[in-house]
């Protein structure tokens, strides 16, 4: 097979996974939120309402797609794509199992963060191009949020990298295979990563740029039909990528303790990985269904005054432990 064909197939696989993920996640969100909220969620269409999301996809695809009068037309059409494409590309470096990785990059972690930070550009473009004040406010918030949280997020991901000694996501998982999952030695880093990641994924309690009770729908106010569908989908996809990263960095990726590696090298590992990721997502949904939203100034001060120094301090501690630990305890890690 030619490399081009392989690349195309991989992209198609990623798109398929993303769409499937979107459909499953929306159904899951409805059911999880429903039961959290003493109601049932969708029940009518299909067994336990499973086809409700499909019906909604059809609705989104066939809905009228009005363009508001005074928008910046080029940017308005481009923005959902600018949001969507990086979300898609972020799937490339995720190690579903030791053999199922679209692109086994040496700097996979860095690549994923870099590509995800492009999403904010798209969100800003959407808010700017919409010619709507609420959208603009949402866009401004998303930039402020991005500037504040990109750094702590990356810093929070560094301790596992330092212990594993690699930026390659698959290598980070392999490093956990031999010893304990990194959530044990890096528990504070895990908490920082969780908070920064919630903000990065634009999730409650930090969904500043949407903030439906304040900004109507933020940057997405003027979008309808499939353009809104793309924005919506990429939000779910970002949540998935963030959860997958968390699984990779802190929960041992595709590995399971006491299970021989041979069983988990192929599809089995991918199944384990997906289950772990969905569990993390379920926790995020639980957060989403329960907590109120913080205010933008509280969010920013949390980022600059708490998370940034805390992550830096934890990096120093990890560094010392990595360098001095073997000498002190006799080479455990």
């Amino acid at each position, binding site marked *: 097979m030619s490399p081009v064909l392989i690349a195309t197939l991989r992209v198609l696989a990623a798109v398929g996974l993303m769409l499937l993920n979107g459909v499953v996640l929306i159904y899951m969100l409805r059911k999880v939120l429903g039961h959290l909220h003493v109601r049932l969620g969708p029940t009518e269409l299909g067994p336990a309402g499973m086809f409700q999301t499909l019906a909604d996809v059809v609705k989104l695809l066939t809905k009228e797609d009005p363009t508001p009068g005074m928008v910046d037309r080029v940017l308005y059409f481009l923005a959902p794509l600018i949001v969507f494409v990086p979300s898609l590309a972020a799937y490339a470096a995720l190690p579903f199992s030791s053999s199922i990785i679209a692109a086994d990059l040496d700097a996979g972690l860095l690549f994923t963060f870099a590509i995800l930070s492009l999403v904010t550009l798209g969100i800003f473009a959407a808010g700017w191009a919409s010619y709507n004040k609420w959208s603009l*406010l949402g866009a401004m918030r998303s930039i402020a949020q991005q500037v504040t949280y990109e750094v702590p997020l990356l810093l929070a991901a560094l301790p596992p990298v330092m212990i594993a000694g690699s930026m390659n996501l698959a290598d980070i998982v392999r490093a956990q295979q031999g010893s304990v999952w990194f959530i044990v030695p890096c528990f504070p880093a895990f908490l920082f990563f969780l908070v920064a990641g919630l903000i990065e994924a634009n999730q409650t309690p930090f969904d500043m740029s949407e903030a439906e*009770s*304040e900004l109507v729908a933020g940057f997405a106010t003027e979008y309808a039909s499939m353009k809104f569908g793309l924005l919506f989908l990429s939000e779910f996809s970002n949540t998935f990528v963030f959860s997958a990263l968390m699984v990779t960095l802190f929960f041992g990726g595709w590995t399971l303790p006491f299970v021989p590696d041979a069983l988990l090298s192929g599809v089995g590992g991918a199944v384990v990985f997906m289950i772990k990721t969905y569990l993390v997502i379920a926790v995020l949904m639980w957060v989403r269904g329960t907590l109120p939203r913080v205010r933008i100034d509280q969010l920013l001060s949390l980022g600059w005054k708490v998370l940034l120094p805390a992550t830096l301090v934890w990096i120093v501690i990890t560094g010392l432990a990595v360098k001095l630990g073997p000498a002190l305890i006799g080479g455990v890690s």
Partner: protein
Amino acid sequence: MDPRHLVEHAGWLTDTPPTDVGFVPASLRRAPMGVDALDTERLIVNMGPQHPSTHGVLRVLLELDGEEVVAAESVIGYLHRGIEKLAEHRRYNAVGTLMDRGDYVSGIHNELAFALAAEAIMEIEVPRRAQWLRVLMAELNRIASHLVWYGTFGLDTGAMGQFLYAVRDREALLDILEDVTGQRMMFNYVRPGGVVADITPTAVEKIHAFLSTIDTHLDEHDQLLGGNEIFQGRVRGVGTIDLETAIAFGLTGANLRASGLGFDVRKDRPYAAYDEMDFAVPMSSDGDCLARYLVRMGEMREAVRIVRQCIEGLPEGEFMAKVPKVLRPPVGEAYAAVESPRGELGVHLVSDGSDTPYRMRYRPPALYALQAAEAILPGTLLADAVVILGSVDVVLGEIDR
């Protein structure tokens, strides 16, 4: 046929867009905290009438400097139905239907205010059982109304869960009210002379069932929202209305009590059977959104206490006084107020001796609350503005009438 505008008024879209917002004179506005040296532009946004968190059809023009509110002006009247005018063309027994549609979240209180005013002019002696039933229904309605407020206030702060938990409890209350009055919201239950129907045995059972769970449910609400760190961060010290401002702008009810003045119509001007009830009036002197939250949550617990007393001590007897079918009060004027969930809801009734009111003034407590909220909005953040408007509990049906 008829070329006039159907929905929008004639000046729609031809009015010049607003350039200056707010009637609060510049000298009284708080100084903006932004840097003036930068060349920035102020943003005027329309919050409402179709904004997710304006509790109906409230429209607030906000002048923003970044995220900070510089000036605010509320534009109301989208729900104006002319209740005061229509009441002049209804017989006394039929005005209740209009009153329900004023503050549609707490209909019993509206009807009660009108009935009390009419009774004051006519000097009707209302049977004791009717008085107790009025208190019982009013307090059930108060809990239902506060639950709606609690749920939407949480929505305003961005939480989602507590709303449906509030609806769960409210549903039980509406069932009870429906059982007794036949309606879930538009009751027309309290009439001049008493109430229109006696309490049913099934309703008593439902009330007992409700009372057996409500205490734990209220604890649940307190934990879910009130005990939340983020929520407290959003409401503590936000939207402080000091007592002076509260009195100046005519704030009443829970909002006034949260600012430090314990005036409760039920205690200070007892009506119906409230003088026979044993209950406390929750108070706070902080005046911020958290204080208003705590006062209202406390009021719910007190309302539960009153309901318990009512259901245990409900006296026997008639539920309606002997009044003629068509009421013709003598010439006169009376003011009657009730403590509605939103504050002092008053009805100023003028009678000219005919079978319809000559003038019926409905004192809307939420209108005054809205004024006070509007006055303290400048200097807050956009996110706080939403919370402040939510915390004073405005119902647009009552503001616009």
